[in-house]
């Protein structure tokens, strides 16, 4: 009998939590031992008749019952409220950072630290047990339909994933990855080379002089593209910031250092030779090849017989 009562209590608690926490946010814990026997009985009486078909419309009435039973019992613990506050703080820091690094895009470079902090606090909320074995996961993350905290965090996570920042920032070491640092260095080399020769106003010299560094940069970039070690900071093009695409545009369009279409004559010569071959082939096979003939066969057919002639008459 006792087991049944406890079971009923637990069911009631779950429903209560679902129904109430979004409405009331009071600071209390409910240790199970504090419940009195009479309270239990009362609870069971309230739940059992209704539980088989538990309509949402009945919920308000039911929760009202319960409220009267435990006025300030079901609350979010102090600990969780504190966590929530920290979360809010870090969240706004991160968002601020994102906004300020949006143009030119430097979200990975500038904000990996704040993102790391945010991730840490979220981990605390979702995984760890606080003092007195309190988990804030249910009370903060899952207790209502909106699940606001979760939603906020997942939005930020999406931004982070979309920017592929994981590829150039290692959150564990709180630093940019070595590849990225190396890339930045090469990029700076190329850019300084560009700058140096651009002042002289001679692009052809720039093309020959900076070719080596630019090639190196370009190859490094292609390699990183292939290995998937690119994040948005490197990929993104921006007129102000000298980033990869911009560098490429500088190189190919502004300085005009792409390869010229220089061998039109040989290509045309070879192509027309190739195109000429089939004409020769078909002409020669037409002129020299023996035409295939078919031997006709004459099938045996009915010779004209009297009745056949009748039909002829019929037609004529």
């Amino acid at each position, binding site marked *: 009998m006792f087991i049944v009562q406890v079971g009923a209590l637990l069911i009631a608690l779950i429903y209560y939590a679902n129904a109430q926490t979004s409405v009331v946010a009071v600071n209390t814990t409910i240790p199970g031992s504090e419940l009195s026997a009479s309270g239990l009985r009362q609870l069971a009486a309230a739940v059992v008749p209704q539980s088989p078909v538990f309509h949402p419309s009945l919920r308000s009435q039911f929760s009202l019952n319960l409220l009267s039973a435990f006025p300030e019992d079901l609350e979010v613990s102090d600990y969780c409220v504190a966590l929530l506050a920290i979360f809010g703080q870090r969240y706004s820091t991160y968002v601020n950072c994102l906004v300020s690094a949006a143009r030119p895009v430097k979200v990975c470079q500038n904000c990996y630290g704040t993102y790391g902090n945010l991730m840490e606090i979220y981990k605390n909320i979702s995984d760890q047990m606080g003092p007195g074995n309190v988990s804030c996961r249910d009370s903060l993350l899952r207790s209502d339909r909106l699940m606001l905290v979760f939603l906020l965090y997942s939005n930020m996570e999406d931004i982070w994933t979309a920017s592929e920042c994981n590829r150039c920032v290692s959150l564990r070491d709180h630093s940019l990855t070595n590849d990225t640092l190396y890339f930045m260095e090469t990029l700076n080399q190329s850019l300084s080379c560009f700058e140096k020769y651009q002042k002289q106003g001679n692009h052809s010299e720039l093309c020959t002089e900076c070719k080596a560094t630019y090639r190196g940069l370009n190859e490094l970039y292609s390699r990183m593209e292939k290995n998937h070690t690119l994040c948005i900071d490197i990929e993104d093009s921006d007129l102000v910031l000298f980033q990869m695409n911009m560098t490429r545009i500088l190189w190919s369009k502004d300085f005009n250092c792409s390869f010229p279409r220089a061998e039109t004559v040989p290509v045309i010569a070879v192509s027309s030779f190739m195109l000429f071959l089939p004409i020769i082939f078909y002409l020669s096979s*037409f002129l020299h090849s023996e035409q295939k*003939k078919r*031997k006709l066969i004459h099938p045996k057919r009915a010779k004209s017989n009297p009745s056949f002639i009748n039909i002829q008459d019929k*037609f004529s």
Partner: protein
Amino acid sequence: MANITKKVSWSSRGDESGGGERTPLLNGSEEVRYTRQFSGDGGMFHIGRLSTVDLEEDMTSDEDSVRGCPKEIPHNEKLLSLKYESLDYDNSENQLFLEEERRMSFLGFKCLEISRWVICGLIGFLTGLIACCIDIAVENLAGVKYFVVKQNIEKFTEVGGLSISLILWAVLNSAFVMVGAVIVAFFEPGAAGSGIPQIKCYLNGVKIPRVVRLKTLVVKVCGVICSVAGGLAVGKEGPMIHSGAVVAAGVSQGRSTSLKKDFKIFEYFRRDTEKRDFVSAGAAAGVSAAFGAPVGGVLFSLEEGASFWNQMLTWRIFFASMISTFTLNFFLSIYNKKPGDLSSPGLINFGRFESDSVAYNLYEIPLFIVMGAVGGLLGALFNILNYWLTIFRIRYVHRPCLQVMEAMLVAAVTATVSFAMIYFSNDCQPLGPDQSEDYPLQLFCADGEYNSMATAFFNTPERSVRSLFHNPPGSYNPLTLSLFTLTYFFLACWTYGLTVSAGVFIPSLLIGAAWGRLFGILLASITPNGSIWADPGKYALIGAAAQLGGIVRMTLSLTVIMVEATGNVTYGLPIMLVLLTAKIVGDYFVEGLYDIHIKLQSVPFLHLEAPATSHWLTAREVMGAPVTCFNRIEKVGTIVDVLSNTSTNHNGFPVVVPVAASDDMGKICGLILRSQLIVLLKHKVFVELARSRLTQRKLQLKDFRDAYPRFPPIQSIHVSQDERECMMDLTEFMNPTPYTVPQETSLPRVFKLFRALGLRHLVVVDSENRVVGLVTRKDLARYHMGKHGLEEMQLAQT
């Protein structure tokens, strides 16, 4: 192209002066006397219903030429070749058959039914496996080729010397294609082309020599891998259908005559009727593996072999199709390192159309119909050009080494044209992260951009189709697309009919997708803010359907195949409308490509119905006469002489009872086939021997099946002088109830019997049941509707 066309017509005109190429009707015979008689007949026809021109003139010129030996004319479409024979779909219900049926228990029949299902499963499995092998082989070979060429081009873009890359590309292409063409031309010419015409003929009831042999399968598979990897404008889907059919024919027989291996299973299925059912299942499995379209496969089989089917057969065919798709997906999932993922469909994967781009509106329907009409027109043009080219090829490029050379030249020119296009193209597009180009070529584009023409040309055709369908708007500029369409149209037209095994599905789709996309882009640019609904990918799909429909003219099955291959039922209506329009418009000008090729092969193909306005022709005019008959008890010498006569290569002989007091034909009492007679002669089933050797084993149906399908020629059977005097009793072996018709039966009626029952011989009898003639497939197939009404084709030896 126009050049060649002119030459062909010129040459045929030149020959006409000698022989009269298109003698309209029943022209002449071996003797002049005969001819005169027939000129009388011709006159009759002339007066009667036919409006043939210059009949008398032709006849007189015939008389001159006929005086010599048999007339020779250049190959043309109005011929029927003697090398094609009918399949024996009609069951010979002789005494042996009845005995066997009596002996067979109820359980035996159950087992047969189960083994039919097992065979269908095996067919599906093996077909799927072959498809998988082809896919992987092509992918890897083409990958290696494009990688090498790409490396080379990149190197030479920097240091100069791009013409060397061009030569490298051309040589690589030619090398691949040479291998493919050599094995086809020298080892198995039957494996050339897509194989769909051949399978169509087979299901129609024509025995195409060597079409369902193991050797053909091997050559076909290797050939298609080579030709696709060789960069020709071809696809691997048509050959897949042929491969499926060969697998079916092989598996259902439980043995391979080529490997001389008999597994002693499925012996019951060793006859044409059963084999045909399995071949249709194999063709369905092939389609289903090629396009990931199981239902489309079944419908293809029904559409092409529609004269014989029933519900149980359809259900089994569907089973084979399903198994085939499943097998292919399973093995591809292992290959792609995602074992167990069964959702990647088909050899050709059109990719998924996302839900926002699939929407279409009522006002787009007229546009779709216009596109269908354009597809029909272009398809007709394609077919006409290919028709002239094929005639030229048959007449002048018939030696195997010439054929190999031609294929290599086409491969080299394809590479050259593609390279030139890419080289001179100025269309550079940024390489987005969502595009999965495998071999982007930068060439003279800025860094970070790629040459847009190269995505279309520097790729296997199948991938090009996919990028045309799915690349975001703006990845191609209109000039690139129109140049590509134009070039690829002529390349594909030139390629189809080469002596390599290759299909026409993918090239057609590619041409259509290119102009469809162009259409979509132009539409978006002329409408003020219409770029929302004029999604180029959608129009590419519709264009592809229109072009394919315009070329091959399939209807129901093609719609379902397209719907299944795109995995999107929403497009069902537009695709259907487009195919309908394309077929109507195209049929106004010329037949479908497969039908043209069937005609050019001189195959006696029976269409769905007898030609219109042929009711006045009766069986008497159609039939062959006089008929070579045998008596119920016939002398062995006579039989051997008749069978050995090379000039009359008959296959069915009515068995007659002589009528007393008349030298006329006897009354019919049965029909016996050449193959049966040969088996009888081989086993020496003579009346005299049976008397002397009482212990001799009685001949069973099994002995006939063991010899199937390659009955030995009569020359290989030795009959001694003594044995020639013996007698043979045919009663037990002949089909005692052959189908007969009276002389006055009209041609359409005879035709219907042939088509519906799958007959091979139809005996024409008079009122007293005496044999007067015999109608065979060739007698019916020679009538067709021409420009001047009903025309008759000539028989030719090939």
